């Protein structure tokens, strides 16, 4: 199968949906001529024109609010927030309006829209350009939260997200855009709410998200030298969460390690740990372990940044402790 980058796969997904459905349009800062800061939308202006690929002022609340208003009238906007750190400026619109209109209006409104954004550390972009805020959005009923880790997943999931009738926060990772992987030429969709077992194993379950899936896979590979077969589960969508796949895996392995790049305290890992401690208590042979970023803002200096963000070694160490 051909291999393309996460960025290309994502762009293909956007392009296909824009071709398929006239109501799909894009809006965001510097997404037109410039193609977006991470170049995801490059070429789409030329293909679809300035009405459907819209540069905006630096006005995140207005961007997301406009997406909502358009969705209420039956459009399917895809709004780009350049960094998830900037979503803070639109968070009233996201959490109080978009997530709640349908409910508040007694089931009458349809807020079918996607907010694409990217998070994560690893580029020395410091505290205001490297956060992982997926837990915030997962806490707000009414939103779905999608966090793809591979080119295959990002394409299948952006297409499903655009077609979904509910509002979706779609979180990319700045260090995944250049990652390559197999992506079929023919069309496919990935259901929202279905985890993917990225690697099978029997000794320990590693639930990892976004870029940490890649690191978990490398760690799992390295652990084979200890004779340890780790199973790596990628939830892919945090809301809805495929509890079944996670619980089945724990049943098999009896051990759970959770890996994410967000700060540990109140990160999404806490939710997975809680799930396991509620529903897999009797399957667990050891305490649960979370390997997550330290509870600090993301520092600038590469040495400090790699210290706070989990790496393979931290994952391997975590697994060894769990098995030890």
């Amino acid at each position, binding site marked *: 199968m051909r291999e393309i980058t996460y960025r290309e796969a994502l762009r293909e997904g956007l392009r296909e949906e824009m071709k398929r459905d006239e109501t799909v349009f894009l809006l965001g800062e510097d997404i037109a001529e410039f193609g977006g800061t991470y170049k995801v939308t490059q070429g789409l202006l030329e293909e679809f024109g300035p009405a459907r690929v819209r540069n905006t002022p630096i006005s995140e609340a207005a961007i997301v609010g406009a997406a909502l208003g358009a969705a*209420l009238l039956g459009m399917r906007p895809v709004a780009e927030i350049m960094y998830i750190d900037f979503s803070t400026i639109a968070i009233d619109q996201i959490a109080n309006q978009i997530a709640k209109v349908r409910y508040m209006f007694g089931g009458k409104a349809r807020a079918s829209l996607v907010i694409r954004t990217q998070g994560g550390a690893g580029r020395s972009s410091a505290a205001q350009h490297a956060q992982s805020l997926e837990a915030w959005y997962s806490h707000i009923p009414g939103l779905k939260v999608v966090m793809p880790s591979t080119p295959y997943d990002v394409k299948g999931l952006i297409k499903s997200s655009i077609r979904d009738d509910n509002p979706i926060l779609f979180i990319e990772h700045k260090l995944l855009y250049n990652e390559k992987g197999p992506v079929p030429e023919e069309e496919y969709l990935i259901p929202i709410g279905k985890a993917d077992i990225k690697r099978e194993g029997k000794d320990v379950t590693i639930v990892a998200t976004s870029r940490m899936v890649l690191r978990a896979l490398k760690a799992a590979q390295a652990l084979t030298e200890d004779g340890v077969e780790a199973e790596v589960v990628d939830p892919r969508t945090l809301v809805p969460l495929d509890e079944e796949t996670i619980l089945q895996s724990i049943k098999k392995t009896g051990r759970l390690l959770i890996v994410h790049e967000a700060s540990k305290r109140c990160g999404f890992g806490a939710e997975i740990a809680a799930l396991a401690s509620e529903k897999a208590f009797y399957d667990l042979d050891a305490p649960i372990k979370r390997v997550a970023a330290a509870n600090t803002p993301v520092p600038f200096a590469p040495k400090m940044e790699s210290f706070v963000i989990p790496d393979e070694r931290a994952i391997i160490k975590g697994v060894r402790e769990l098995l030890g």
Partner: protein
Amino acid sequence: MIPKEKLMEMYEKMVRIRRFEEKAVELFLKGALPGFLHSSIGQEAVSVGACAALREDDYMISTHRGHGDIIAKGARVDLMMAELFAKKTGYCKGKGGSMHIADLDLGILGATGIVGAGLPIINGAALACQLKGTDQVSLCFFGDGASNTGSFHEALNMASIWNLPVIFVCQNNLYAESTPQWVHQKIQDISVRAQGYGIPGVSVDGNNVLTVYRATSEAVERARGKGGPTLIECKTYRWLGHYVGDPGTAYRTKEEVEQWKSRDPVKQYRANLLANGVCEEKDLDAIDRRLEREIEEAVEFARNSPDPDPEDALQDVYIGEYIP
């Protein structure tokens, strides 16, 4: 020349609002309604004058003090009253309450309880119409207090740069909760802010329904003709406190309140119709009586309606299934 039918319809709507609001206050004080209630008594001319300039297929978004706006755009008082009573038959099935009534079929895109949050959303509605190539316009009500929110600024700038068919109608009732205008902003005419976006702005007497109607009609015409957005400030007054329960006396003088009451928009308009020979007293009395009955029937309907089932709370979070 405004046709008689239109003139009479405006009168009817103003009286419908007044009666509805009076009844709602009465019921609230008796403890019949849960939640809070923000009365719009005194502001009828703005709601009715502005909405009278719209077509039925135009869009409108309102605020926490929205009953008047919503009635002016054509909403049914029985379904509204049922919502205030938190009944299953209410506009929002009892999920939204006073602050969140929507009727998408009538172009009422709801009301938000977050001050200023409607402005970004209305842009999206206008954008959808622009993209679809219809000549529908969209109107957003908001208060003097809302004009200091970041959302106001972001939204007006976006509307101006995209030349959106929007009318921003500021209901300047001189207070934001307990805070007088001169304490929350230095300017007197909020319409001067239009200059910061290169769009037309105008300040008018918000207690004269025909003045509001004319100013809005001009803005609507411009918007339909692809002339872009307008900011209209309507100076008016809320007779009661910020919400029912606030006597509104800690921060306003009796004299001020009385002076504004002497400029009752409903009475003034009634006198105007008679003075201009549009109709006779008995025609207006007939309307008054009819509305009295209509509101009584609405209350009746609401009272006799069933409560929602507690478990209904789990519906309408998503299109599709509840995510536990």
